[in-house]
């Protein structure tokens, strides 16, 4: 599935963007499945806005965004649900877990949607990220680092062509970051998927095929 952006300008950032140059805003770009895109974005340049636009959470922009043949501006709720369960997955910067559910339930509620990843596999991924003893802890009681690791596993328990990541390791120490990178790489490779990684600073977490300054 190809991602195409044409002249995209978020309305809240319109004044700021017209005075600066960007590798994505106002540009005509397209990325193919399997590409590893790194979007380097200093604070306030619209990194989270970009991820939210690509994931269909925001529609306050000019220009067009297309996933394959689907024009996001006119895509309905049901089709978005299909895209979010079969084509695009996301790791939010602010994690967005259900505080009422345990760590495992936060993953399982996503896993059951497609049932393409077994319970055992999901448990193993949680174990790999060091959350073996936290599976039954409520989402509200997990630390930010633990929440971020749960959010990473949750993003992986579905089929996808593209994985969108918004500062996915911002609350992780070096060791946990390495574990998460390995897991994400393994799963992305299994799906032959592409990724769009947005972060503040340059990094070599993944073998990026393109680096773009937002």
């Amino acid at each position, binding site marked *: 599935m190809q991602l195409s952006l044409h002249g995209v300008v978020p309305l809240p950032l319109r004044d700021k963007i017209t005075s600066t140059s960007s590798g994505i805003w106002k540009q005509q770009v397209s990325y193919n499945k399997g590409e590893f895109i790194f979007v380097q974005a200093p604070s306030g340049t619209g990194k989270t806005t970009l991820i939210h636009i690509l994931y269909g959470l925001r529609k306050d922009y000019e220009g067009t965004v297309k996933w394959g043949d689907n024009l996001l501006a006119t895509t309905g709720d049901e089709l978005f*649900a299909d895209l979010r369960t079969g084509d695009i997955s996301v790791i939010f910067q602010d994690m*967005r877990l259900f505080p009422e559910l345990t760590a495992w339930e936060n993953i399982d509620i996503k896993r059951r949607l497609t049932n393409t990843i077994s319970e055992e596999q999901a448990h193993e991924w949680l174990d790999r990220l060091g959350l073996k003893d936290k599976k039954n802890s409520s989402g509200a009681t997990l630390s930010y680092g633990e929440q971020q690791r749960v959010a990473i596993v949750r993003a992986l328990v579905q089929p996808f062509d593209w994985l969108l990541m918004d500062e996915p390791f911002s609350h992780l120490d070096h060791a946990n970051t390495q574990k998460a990178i390995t897991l994400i790489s393994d799963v992305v490779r299994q799906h032959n998927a592409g990724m769009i990684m947005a972060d503040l600073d340059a990094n070599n977490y993944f073998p990026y095929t393109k680096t773009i300054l937002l």
Partner: protein
Amino acid sequence: MLKRLLLGTQHRGRLWAALIALCLGTTLLLLSVMIWWNFNELLYGKGQDDSLGSTFLIIGKRVTDQNMGVPNATIFQPQDIEALKQAPQVQDVGVITSNHFPIYAMMGGQLPLATDLPLESVPDKFIDKMPADWKWEPGSRDLPIIVSSQFLDIYNYVFAPSQGLPQLSQSSVKSIALNLKVGKGDRTETFLAHVVGFSDRIGSVLAPQSFIDYGNKTYGNPGVPMTYSQVIIKAKDPSDKHFADYLQQHDYATNSQNLRWSKVRAIVEVVTSATGILALLLMGIGTLVFILFIELTIAKAQASLTLLLQIGYSPRYISRFMTGRFLPLILGTVVCSMAIAAAGQWVAAVNARTQGLNLPLLPGWPVWAALALSTAILLVLVTRSISAAIRK
């Protein structure tokens, strides 16, 4: 998990209040339809029982100072009968045939009675309580007759006490045989008459049509055409102004008791209509309360709902889940309302029977239709409100 996320904040007290409101509204709607239908059955039904106020009226031409003594002035001509059939509210017209031959009744035993006895006949479909053995054929000596209930009342409450005679129940009267001598001079026949039924509708003594026809032909005046001074009509609504005007314009007289019952019926209709409107309002309020409860539940789970949609749950899936949760509650409420209505119908039928009225033990089709319609509307409204609240 979905239940915890979406319905975890559900307030049980509010849920019960909403269900009770819905149940009350539905029950009242069903009861009002049931009341309306029951009265309709009693008033317009095809049943033989019309003691709540008949739609059958006996009509005669009014005897006035002017037409008194004028031959055939109060006789119904064929064109009169045809015109009556076309009159407002009139559904059927039957002629009342009286005997044009002498009948002399004699009774022996404890009740020495000997009197001239006028007999009449009406088409069978106008008889309110049709006895099983209501038939007579030429050559038969036994003659079934139907007596007005009023006759027995007059005997039991007026004649018997004043004469020191025993009072008689309906069943004891049915066991008495009456000798009828028909004809005069050398040409006479005797019959053994048995009372086989009592009528609230006809105020005289009825014999089968075949007997009256036989007597008129055999012992009547040959060459004189048959005339009818009374007719019985079945009217849809005798309280209708156009019908009353028609009777007045043609100077027809009828038994006013029936018209009085018609007024009662009109009042009953107004009351049931008012009850129906009130029930519709209550049903509407009940539905509104229930829908508001659902919307409130969804609003309180808005954060979870938003996140579910963000991680890939479709609005349709969540709508189905929510509908699936509320559907059993709605159906349970509806079944409860129907059970109450059915119990009400059963109690009404049992009580009505003690009053001599026939009502079915189960609610009639309009009640079931109202149930189906109200449930369908309720389900559509609830489904749409859930869907709208989720997509909001």
